[in-house]
């Protein structure tokens, strides 16, 4: 029932609000007017008059007497009366009025002060005038007509007006022309022009190129999360050609360790975890397959649009062969591994909470949008309505994520056996069937147990050893359905059904329509990866920038909405986003641009003049000094002792899928003593590995594109006292002493190269050597260990410059 059918212009479309008691089932009606019913009996003149009545009489009453407690500032009783949409939504106690029985309308009961538990406005405010009460009654009796079109403004003056399509991040991405400034010898590529243009406008200047050894340490940690080896340092320093830089970058981008490093960043974004956390901390025993899928995808530089699509709708994609099908299914673990209240006794609430978590994660991870806010009310700051939210909720309601909602609820697992694994299993099954048949036959022939013994034993052995076909948590299609609007997010207060669709404000010109046979996830992915989508490319190139520089061009990496930060270099952001799409969504292409820039290569030294003008270094006049992330610290501690194992990991959990990591026992037996890279260590929600916990690891429960980088005393306790640091120090000291160096000076030199990637200054060498000497000859071995402990605790170890 669209406005045009009524012969009136859409923007003047007038609707009757028909909210009776909350929870009353209503027939599904058109999405544009769910919760409201249009009146066909009234003429447009009558409607216009009623709107005028609302504007001249009702809105002022609400504004004067109600909005201070039921408006943008406060929402007493979960009720807002500052816009027609909000009035239509009602509050915690239900709808504001009842057209069928106007005198029973809560608003009239309240202002007439008929019920002692509902007196409005509350004392000491005076009762409304009889005239005002009469106007309210008249308005409701007339059908509570309000303007519901897009022009319907707020009743009161809102502090922060909602943004619309004009918001910067909703603008189409047009590749900006390169800045029209003279190039300099400093510039390496286009990025530098954008950076320099902004600097010149402020009068600050970049640093010169960083010392070569510092650059090598920086880029190596940056691209693979490990320190450069001593021989890598020596050969890079020996190669004085300009191409030496590119060779290092090529080598690192092609290293399988690249995916280990950059995959981990992505795992932060998708709140990757090996356990559910929240209430029932049971194992995500198959999530590791998704982790390895991410590592592989990044290593092969899978186009980002494809990467996104697989994670949202991999199960719906055609696959050329089995391994592709397995990867596609594995990718959908993205939707499945959110934290869930698995013992939630209210199963309907659990389902909607899970859907909410999916929408929230999807919005923040890929689009930098906080859709979750619209679950209970129209988004206060971004143009996302509850209609938008429940339109998306329908897509996920139509997706099968859970096999059971009964506590402890079970998530779905997709089967991902290879052909080989299937064949092996079938062979075993055949063998079992054959053995059983033979035993039966022998039994029929009257054979004794002793005679059947060897067959029975063989049967037992095969049955015990029959391979379990691998699965991975993930989703599949469910029954396709729309979701009713949940009034104030309450699953017990349902209003009209909302058709599955994507948020209005981001409705692209060539919007995809959803068919009735599918959940709509595939179309959702297509909509997100459409080149005219303004957010997808911007959000991901900004993430890359954040991970290379420690701060995004848009500092709020997961929020590109009204409350997010504005980009520091909007044109550079768009240029990179356009580059990404033009390159066929190649992340490595964009990264190569970033790390080959002079901006990236510059030194990190301070500059008082620039500091004065730009203390936060938003203009990137120096490379920011950065503390290593938790994983890099851990891997480096092992690498320093020569103990890191660069092999590929599977699962290091000590319990099976869906088994408790620990219940109320508080005894967590998870072990972190593996020497594999940190990405393979278990990620246990509610009880992270100490080292991770101390050094600002993601909490693994929400999208985290911008980890903290704190410096607190408990970290220092770890570096001073932990067994891991002491063990590394001991091993390192042993190696230093066992190796045949000519002098102790050479030892110190080697120690520096290994830990700090550079040669020591004379003063440093002297200080360290005198530390060793102070213990006397008999304690020399111990002193070397103490020295190594201190060296591992040094800023030079923990920070990249």
């Amino acid at each position, binding site marked *: 029932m669209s406005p045009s059918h009524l012969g009136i212009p859409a923007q003047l479309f007038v609707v009757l609000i028909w909210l009776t008691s909350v929870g009353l089932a209503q027939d599904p009606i058109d999405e544009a007017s769910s919760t409201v019913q249009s009146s066909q009996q009234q003429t447009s003149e009558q409607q216009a008059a009623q709107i005028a009545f609302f504007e001249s009489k009702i809105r002022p009453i609400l504004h004067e007497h109600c909005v201070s407690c039921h408006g943008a500032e406060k929402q007493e009783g979960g009720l807002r009366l500052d816009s027609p949409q909000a009035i239509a939504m009602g509050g915690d106690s239900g709808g504001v009025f009842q057209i069928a029985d106007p005198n029973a309308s809560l608003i009239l009961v309240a202002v007439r002060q008929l019920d002692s538990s509902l007196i409005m406005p509350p004392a000491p405010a005076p009762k409304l005038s009889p005239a005002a009460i009469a106007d309210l009654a008249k308005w409701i009796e007339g059908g509570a007509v309000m303007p519901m079109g897009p022009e319907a403004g707020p009743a009161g003056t809102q502090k922060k007006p909602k943004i619309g399509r004009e918001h910067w991040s909703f603008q189409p991405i047009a590749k900006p022309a390169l800045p029209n400034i003279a190039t300099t010898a400093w510039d390496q590529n286009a990025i530098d022009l954008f950076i320099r243009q902004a600097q010149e406008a402020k009068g600050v200047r970049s640093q010169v190129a960083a010392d070569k050894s510092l650059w090598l340490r920086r880029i190596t940690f940056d691209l693979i999360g490990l320190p450069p080896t001593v021989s890598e340092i020596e050969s890079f320093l020996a190669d004085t050609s300009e191409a030496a830089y590119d060779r290092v970058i090529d080598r690192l981008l092609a290293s399988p360790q690249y995916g280990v490093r950059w995959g981990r960043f992505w795992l932060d974004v998708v709140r990757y975890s090996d356990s559910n956390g929240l209430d029932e901390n049971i194992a995500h025993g198959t999530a590791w397959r998704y982790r390895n899928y991410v590592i592989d995808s990044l290593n092969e530089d899978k186009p980002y649009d494809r990467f996104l699509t697989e994670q949202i709708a991999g199960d719906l994609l055609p696959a050329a062969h089995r391994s592709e099908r397995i990867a596609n299914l594995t990718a959908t673990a993205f939707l499945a591994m959110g934290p869930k209240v698995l013992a939630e006794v209210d199963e309907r609430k659990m389902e909607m909470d899970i859907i909410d978590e999916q929408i929230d994660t999807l919005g923040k991870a890929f689009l930098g949008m906080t859709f979750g806010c619209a679950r209970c009310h129209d988004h206060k700051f971004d143009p996302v309505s509850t209609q938008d939210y429940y339109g998306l909720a329908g897509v996920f309601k139509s997706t099968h994520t859970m096999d059971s909602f009964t506590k402890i609820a079970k998530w779905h697992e997709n089967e991902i056996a290879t052909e080989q694994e299937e064949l092996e299993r079938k062979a075993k099954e055949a063998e079992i069937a054959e053995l059983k048949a033979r035993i039966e036959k022998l039994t029929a022939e009257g054979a004794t147990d002793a005679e059947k013994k060897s067959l029975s034993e063989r049967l037992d052995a095969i049955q015990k050893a029959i391979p379990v076909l691998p699965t991975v948590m993930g989703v599949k299609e469910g029954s396709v359905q729309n979701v009713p609007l949940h009034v104030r997010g309450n699953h017990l207060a349902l209003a009209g059904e909302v058709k599955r669709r994507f948020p209005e404000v981001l409705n692209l010109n060539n919007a995809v329509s959803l068919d009735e046979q599918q959940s709509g996830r595939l179309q959702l992915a297509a909509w997100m990866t459409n080149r005219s989508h303004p957010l997808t490319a911007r959000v991901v190139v900004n993430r890359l920038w954040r991970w290379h520089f420690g701060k995004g061009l848009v500092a709020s990496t997961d929020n590109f909405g009204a409350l997010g930060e504005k980009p520091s270099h909007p044109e550079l952001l768009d240029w990179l986003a356009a580059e990404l799409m033009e390159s066929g969504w190649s992340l490595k292409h964009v990264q190569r641009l970033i790390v080959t820039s002079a901006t990236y290569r510059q030194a990190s030294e301070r500059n008082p003049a620039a500091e004065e003008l730009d203390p936060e270094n938003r203009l990137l006049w120096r490379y920011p000094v950065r503390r290593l992330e938790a994983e890099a610290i851990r891997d480096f501690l092992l690498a320093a002792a020569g103990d890191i194992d660069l092999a590929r990991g599977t699962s290091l959990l000590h319990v099976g899928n869906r088994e408790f990591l620990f219940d109320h026992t508080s005894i967590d037996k998870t072990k972190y003593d593996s020497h594999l890279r940190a990405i393979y260590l278990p990620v246990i929600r509610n009880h992270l590995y100490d080292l991770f916990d101390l050094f600002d690891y993601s909490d693994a429960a929400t999208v985290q594109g911008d980890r903290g980088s704190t410096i607190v005393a408990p970290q220092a*306790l770890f570096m001073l006292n932990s067994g891991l640091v002491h063990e590394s120090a001991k091993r390192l000291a042993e190696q230093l002493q066992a190796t045949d160096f000519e002098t102790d000076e050479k030892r110190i030199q080697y120690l520096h190269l290994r830990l700090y990637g550079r040669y020591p200054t004379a003063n440093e060498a002297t200080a360290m050597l005198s530390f060793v000497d102070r213990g006397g000859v008999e304690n020399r071995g111990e002193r070397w260990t103490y020295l190594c402990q201190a060296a591992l605790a040094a800023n030079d170890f923990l920070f990249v410059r």
Partner: protein
Amino acid sequence: MMNNLPLFNEMLNSLQNSNRRNMLKQSGVGFGYLAAAALLGELSSKAVGAETAFERALAAKPSHFPCKAKRAIFLFMKGGPSHIDTFDYKPQLQKDDGKELPFDKPRVQFAKTGKLLGSPWKFARYGQSGSFVSQLFPNVAKHVDDLCFIHSLHGTNAAHGGALLKLHTGSDAFVRPSLGAWLSYGLGTENSDLPGFVTICPTLAHGGVNNWGSAFLPAIYQGTPLGNASMPSDQATVRYIKSASGVSREVQREQLDLLRELHQQKAQNGQVDEVLDSRIASMELAFRMQTEMPLAEDLSQESAGTHELYGLNDPMTANFGRQCLLARRLIERGVRYVQVTHSDAFVQWDQHSDLKKGHEKNAKEVDLPIAALLQDLKQRGLLDETLVIWTGEFGRTPVAEGTNGRDHNPEGFTAWLAGGGVKGGFHYGATDEYGYYAVDNKVHLHDFHATILALLGLDHEKLTYRYAGRDFRLTDIHGKVAWDVFA
């Protein structure tokens, strides 16, 4: 060091403006408040330790309004102690033992329950206030005139996990900062050598670290756990407080001196910035904490009389007694918020069956130590400025589960407060005649949080933190202070 003057001034300004959030923002990379404050001390004078810096930082951000409570101890009874068998006397329940509940059970229940089950314990009146307490708490009963009972608490989740999260963080759906983290954020700590929020033997289950975490608040505000529920309290201490390989304090001092020397060499070359400076300060701080924490934990400093008082000589009470005594020692040293969890490696108070046996054991373990804590705080003049909070994550149903157990009941249960500006011998709110639902002066958990913050001088609507573009509160968009409980 002069290089840091802009930062120093910036911080000082922030502190003077009592705007903590700005300070954290302006500290660039967001290093912790502790380190920032230490740096402040570092810069202002070589001889001045971080304590002074902390005092200054605290002085610059007073509570929102005047209040008596300066700090708090939360005695958390894990599993859900039964209110109707302890502090919420229901004579009608005794009368109707074995009958059907005459009204509806909640729409959502955790387990299947049957008919009304009278309390196996007798209640008697105590104190001037004539407050009812059951036989389970004979020692706490002696202090009823100091206790302020809230009988109408409600609104947690029906399962342990959700209920713990809701009680500790206000949210059972998202990871949010815990009450203790909000308090340290709002008020800071009074002792720069110790954390502002310590949690003794917390359970790792049912939300685990999230129950003392800082979520999006700066990490410095998170609770520092001493051990966990699976270990005896005499083994509970701060992680990594001792050298794993027994490196002596003297050698560690030498190591720190070496780092300082190397750092200073760099500073002369302009290669040091505020982040690196504060890292060095954080190492010094850790070094001091290594001394201070074991001192706080050393119960041998206490008299034999005190050991006796807290029941440390009786295996039944020793474990929880140590926790309570430790709490007092930490509070005394200026820790802002100490949580003491009563939980073994099981769900301690969760008597789905064998209510009598289970609750009797549990109450025996805590009754004497809690009474001792109240008495001790009072004797030392600390009770007036220390808010003591006692509750579980929910109460239990008046209807039986099986023959002799009770199910979870988040619909109505009891908490009590003591000291820190609350009315003593006072009963606020009520459940129905059987103790199933909160009916009078209902106090939702959000209201409870708002009230606790208010008792510590913080306005729950003003204690906000901006994260992901939104101002967050412990009470979200809810919370009404129960002003009636204020003395």
